[in-house]
C-alpha cells in the first residue's frame, strides 16, 4: 500500500490550560477526500493550523508521504505541497485575481515577468481542473463562490497536492456548494488529496471517502464514509444520541396573526429588494422563507420588525395595521406582541460587551418587573437571567459573564430566551442556528416547535434548506425580491432548489 499522504502521530497542543488537541492520530490516504468533522471548538481548526504551520504542536510527529517533516511556518507547509483554503478567505480585496495568486510566490523581484508566468500557469490550471476565472477581475467584485475558486487556485499555483479546506461551504449558496464539490471530485480524479473540515454532516456524506470525527480535542473515530450513517456521525460528534429529524405533529393553524400585503422595500442604493410581497402567518404554524442569501429575505424581516421602512404595502399584526411606511418602531411592535430574533446576533441581537443578564432583558428593560423606581432592579434582573439560563441550558451558567465569552450557540440561546420568554403572539426568527453546534440546533428546533404548538405564529428565515424543511409547515421561496413559489413542508430539496435558483416559477416562465 502506498504511504499515507499525511500521517499525524500523537499530536498534542495546549493553549494555556485549554488542551485543544490531545494525542491525535490521523492517516489520510493519497488521492482521497478525507472529511474531518466535529462541533465548533472540537479542535479541528487547531489541528489544521498545526499542519499548515500556523502553530507548532507541543508534541507529536507529522509525516507527509511517509517522510517525517517539520512544519514551522506556512512556507514550510507550502514547500511540502500542502495548501490551505481558509474559512475567511485570505485575499486582498482590491487586488486582481492574478495579483492575489502571485502574492508570496512571485518568483522574481519584478512583477512583469511574474505576472506573465502566472497568466500562463493559470490557463493551464483552468484547463486541467475546470476552474475558470477572469485573471484580471478585481477580487472584491467577484461573487463569493469565485473568490473561493481563487483561493483554490492560489494553493494549486504553489504546487499543492494536498489541499485543506476549512468550512468551505459556510459562505456558499447551495448551487455554489454543489459546484465546489464537483471541483473537489475533479481534483481527486487528478490525484490530489483533499482534507475537508466541516460541521455539516450532509457534506461529509455527499463527497468524502473517509471521515474522522473530533470531539473536545480528541479524535474519537475514523470511518469509511460508505460504512457509516449520518446518525452515527452525529452521535460521535456530540457524544450522545441526537435527533436530526425534528419530531412534530401536523400543524393546527387558526386565525391570521400576521398579514403582509403588497409590500415593497427599497434599499439605500435605490434598488427594490422586496417586490410586491404578500403572505400571511396564522396562529399555530411555522412559515419558512427559503432563498439564497441576498434575495430580499433579510429586508423583509427587518421591515416587519420595524427596523426598516417600506415604500408601499401594508402589514397587519392581529388585524391591526403596522405603520411600515412611516413610524413603526421595534419597541412599539414588542409591546404589541411581536418578537424578533435577528439574523445577525452579533450586531443586532446582542451587545457583546454587556453581561449575560443585561442582554437577557435588552429591549425589555423598561418593564416594571426589572425596575425599582427609575433604577434597574439588579436582584430581579439576576433572578430572571438565572431562570432563563436554567430553562434554555445556557452555558456557562454565569449571568455576570461578558456575552462575548459565550460560544455562538449559547449566545443564540440568550437571544432566543429573551424573545421567547416574553410570550409573543408572533415570532420572527432569522437564521436561528447559524454557527450553532448540532446539540444546540436540536434544542433550538424543539423550542420553535413548542412555540408553534402553543399557538404562536412563527415566521422563519433561513438559508439552511434542511432547517426550513425540518421546521416549516408552509414554505415560501424568495428569489430576486419576489415570492416565486409556495410549497408545503414536505416539498423536496430539488424542487425548492430550482425555485431558489429562479429556474422555475413566474420569473422563469416569462
Amino acid at each position, binding site marked *: 500500500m502506498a504511504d499515507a499522504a499525511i500521517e499525524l502521530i500523537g499530536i498534542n497542543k495546549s493553549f494555556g490550560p485549554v488542551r485543544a488537541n490531545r494525542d491525535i492520530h490521523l492517516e489520510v490516504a493519497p488521492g482521497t477526500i478525507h472529511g474531518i468533522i466535529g462541533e465548533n471548538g472540537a479542535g479541528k481548526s487547531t489541528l489544521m493550523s498545526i499542519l499548515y504551520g500556523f502553530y507548532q504542536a507541543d508534541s507529536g510527529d507529522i509525516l507527509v508521504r511517509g517522510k517525517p517533516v517539520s512544519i514551522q*511556518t506556512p512556507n514550510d507547509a507550502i514547500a511540502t505541497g500542502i495548501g*490551505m483554503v481558509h474559512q475567511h478567505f485570505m*485575499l486582498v480585496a482590491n487586488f486582481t485575481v492574478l495579483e492575489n495568486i502571485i502574492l*508570496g510566490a512571485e518568483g522574481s*523581484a*519584478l*512583477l512583469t515577468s511574474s505576472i506573465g508566468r502566472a497568466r500562463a500557469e493559470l490557463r493551464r490550471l483552468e484547463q486541467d481542473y475546470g476552474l475558470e476565472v477572469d485573471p484580471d477581475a478585481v477580487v472584491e467584485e467577484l461573487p463569493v463562490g469565485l473568490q473561493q475558486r481563487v483561493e483554490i487556485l492560489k494553493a494549486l499555483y504553489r504546487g499543492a497536492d494536498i489541499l485543506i479546506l476549512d468550512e468551505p461551504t459556510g459562505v456558499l449558496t447551495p448551487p455554489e456548494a454543489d459546484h465546489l464539490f464537483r471541483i473537489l471530485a475533479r481534483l481527486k480524479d487528478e490525484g490530489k488529496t483533499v482534507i475537508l473540515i466541516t460541521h455539516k454532516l450532509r457534506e461529509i456524506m455527499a463527497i468524502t471517502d473517509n471521515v474522522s470525527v473530533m470531539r473536545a480535542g480528541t479524535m474519537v473515530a475514523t470511518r469509511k464514509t460508505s460504512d457509516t450513517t449520518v446518525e452515527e456521525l452525529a452521535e460521535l460528534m456530540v457524544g450522545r444520541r441526537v435527533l436530526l429529524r425534528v419530531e412534530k405533529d401536523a400543524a393546527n393553524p387558526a386565525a391570521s396573526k400576521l398579514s403582509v400585503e403588497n409590500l415593497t422595500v427599497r434599499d439605500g442604493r435605490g434598488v427594490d429588494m422586496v417586490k410586491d410581497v404578500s403572505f400571511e402567518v396564522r396562529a399555530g404554524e411555522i412559515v419558512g422563507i427559503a432563498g439564497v442569501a441576498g434575495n430580499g429575505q433579510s429586508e423583509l424581516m427587518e421591515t416587519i420588525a420595524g427596523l426598516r421602512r417600506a415604500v408601499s404595502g401594508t402589514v397587519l399584526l392581529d388585524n391591526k395595521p403596522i405603520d411600515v411606511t412611516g413610524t413603526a418602531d421595534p419597541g412599539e411592535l414588542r409591546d404589541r406582541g411581536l418578537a424578533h430574533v435577528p439574523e445577525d446576533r452579533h450586531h443586532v441581537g446582542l451587545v457583546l460587551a454587556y453581561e449575560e443578564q443585561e442582554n437577557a432583558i435588552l429591549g425589555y428593560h423598561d418593564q416594571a418587573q426589572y425596575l425599582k423606581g427609575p433604577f434597574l432592579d439588579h436582584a430581579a434582573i439576576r433572578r430572571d437571567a438565572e431562570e432563563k439560563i436554567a430553562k434554555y441550558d445556557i452555558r456557562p451558567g454565569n449571568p455576570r459573564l461578558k456575552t462575548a465569552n459565550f460560544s455562538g450557540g449559547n449566545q443564540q440561546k440568550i437571544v432566543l430566551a429573551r424573545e421567547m420568554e416574553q410570550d409573543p403572539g408572533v415570532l420572527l426568527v432569522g437564521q436561528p442556528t447559524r454557527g450553532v453546534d448540532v446539540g444546540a440546533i436540536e434544542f433550538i428546533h424543539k423550542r420553535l416547535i413548542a412555540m408553534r404548538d402553543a399557538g404562536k405564529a412563527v415566521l422563519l428565515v433561513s438559508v439552511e434548506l434542511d432547517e426550513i424543511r425540518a421546521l416549516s409547515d408552509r414554505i415560501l421561496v424568495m428569489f430576486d425580491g419576489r415570492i416565486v413559489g409556495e410549497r408545503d413542508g414536505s416539498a423536496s430539496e430539488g424542487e425548492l432548489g430550482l425555485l431558489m435558483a429562479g429556474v422555475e416559477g413566474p420569473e422563469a416562465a416569462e
Partner: protein
Amino acid sequence: MDFLPTIITVLDSTIRLSIPLLLACLAGLYSERSGIFDIGLEGKMLAGAFAAGSAAFVFGSAWIGLGMAILVAVALALVHGFASITHRGNQIVSGVAINFIAAGATIILGQAWFAQGGRTPQVSGPGRFNAVELPGAAALRDVPVLGTIYADLLSGHTILVYLAFLTVPVTWWVLYRTRFGLRLRAVGENPAAVDTAGISVPWLRYRAVICTGILSGAAGAYLALAMNAGFVKDMTAGRGYIALAALIFAKWRPVPAMFACLLFGFLDALSIRLQGTPLPLVGRVPVQFMQALPYILTVILLAGFIGKAIPPRAGGVPYVKER
C-alpha cells in the same frame, strides 16, 4: 506689472515650498500603505532638520547633513515601528509621542550644543545645498517664454528638488512593478493574506517604515539646508500634517500625491505673493487671512471635493495572528 515674471516667480516658489511636503507625503505613503498610520511625520522631519543643520555645521558638508538627517529619522521611524509593529501599540499615540520628543529634544540639544536659543549656527557654501544650473540655462534665458520657463523655473533649484521629483516615478514603480510593492500594498489591505502566503508581516512593515524614515529625513534636510541655512526651532511648522492631508487627498497614490503637494505649495506661494498686494474688488486683504488661506482650502478640499478617500483597510490596526 509684467505678467510672465510674476507667474514664474509664484510657480518657482511653489516648487520650493512643495518639496518638503512631497518628500514627507511620499514618506507617509510607504508607511500607511503598509498599514501603519504615521502622524509622526512632523517629528521625524523636525528631528531630521536638526540633525542636518548640526551635522552640516560640524562637518561642513550638506551631504553628511543629509545622511545624518536620514539616520535620525530612520531611528525614530524604527521607534514607531517597535511600538506599533512589535508591541502592537496605538499608532496615533506613538506618532504623537514622536512629535513631542522631536519638538523638545531639538531645542534642548540645540541649546546645549550651540547655545543659540535652539538654533543651529548658520551654514553656507558646501554646508548647504546650492542651486544647480541646468545645462544651457544661461544661453536659453533670452528665448521668449520657453527659455524663461527653462532658465528661471526649471533650472536653478537644489539637487534635492530634482531628487524629490524623481522619487515620484520611482515610488510608483516600486509600488506597482516590484514584488516589494505588491506585498506592501497587500499588507496594508489584508495582513492575514500576506501571513498565510508565507511572508513575514512584521519584517515587511519594518521595511516600509524604514522607507518612511529615509524620505522624512530627506524632507527635514531640505528644510534646514536648502530652504534655509540652518535649523530653526519648530521649522517644520505643521508641514508633516499638511503632507498627511495631501496623502489623503491623493488617496495614497504617488502621482496624485505629487499634484496634491504642488497644489498646497502653490497656495502657500500665492499667500506669500499676495501679502500686502491690493486685490481687484476686495482691496487690501489682511495678512493673516492670506496666511490662513492654504489651511482653509485644505479643510474645504478634504471636507468635500475629493470624493471618498478609502484608506488602506488594515491601516491603524496591529496585526495579531488569528486563532
